[in-house]
């Protein structure tokens, strides 16, 4: 099924790119079927143990919790990215599906457009 695919590739809080990527995904959900894929260090966007208080910045990552309310239920990450970082799905703040590379290639193939952040 055709959809907009958003890809998060950077860890949170060090730059604003993840926050603006999430904003774009939330906005996209108002117009289209959207999927969100976390690649590489992007998986840290939804690390379950975030505390931005020492950084003095707003913890926008709580907004990921709004994705189901926006109808965004296609949430994915890459199996090898989890393994390489010693993470499991249980370490993440929300349920998502881990995909092998061929499934990720298919996800990108099936997307009407891909927006990478």
């Amino acid at each position, binding site marked *: 099924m055709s959809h*907009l695919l958003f890809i998060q590739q950077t860890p949170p809080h060090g730059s604003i790119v993840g926050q603006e990527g999430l*904003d774009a995904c939330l906005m*996209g959900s*108002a117009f*289209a079927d959207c999927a969100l894929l976390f690649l590489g260090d992007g998986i840290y966007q939804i690390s379950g143990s975030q505390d931005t208080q020492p950084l003095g910045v707003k913890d926008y990552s709580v907004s990921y919790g709004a994705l189901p309310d926006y109808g965004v239920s296609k949430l994915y990450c890459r199996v090898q990215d989890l393994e390489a970082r010693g993470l499991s799905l249980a370490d993440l703040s929300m349920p998502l599906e881990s995909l092998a590379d061929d499934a990720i290639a298919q996800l990108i193939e099936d997307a*009407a457009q891909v927006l990478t952040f």
Partner: protein
Amino acid sequence: MIFSIAVFAGPQNSAAPLSALRFARAVIAAGHDLTRVFFYHDGVSTANLLNTPPQDEPDVTQEWSEFGQQHQLELLVCVASALRRGILDQTEATRHGKAAANLAAGFEIAGLGQLIDVALNADRLVVFK
């Protein structure tokens, strides 16, 4: 073919806005349709009228400004990204009590929904970042 272009990086530290401009020229030269360009994330800095590069370097803001007006393109600048980076048109400057506006001619402030619209209504969306 209908092309749309999105620019996610600014001219201060990236070649993306200039590469996007070259690509836009090529799209039009090849006879394709290009009507909208969306500037998001650091890409909104492309629209800063006050960008003042050294004289022996390209003025990407001015080039985009002239190119957009010449081809009647919609150069859409995300309002949230722009405000955060100090890029305001007169309306936003007045609304937020700022002393000056600095949105270059040919650009217009737009909502993020326009990015999605641009993405959905193009045969190809090409992102420069």
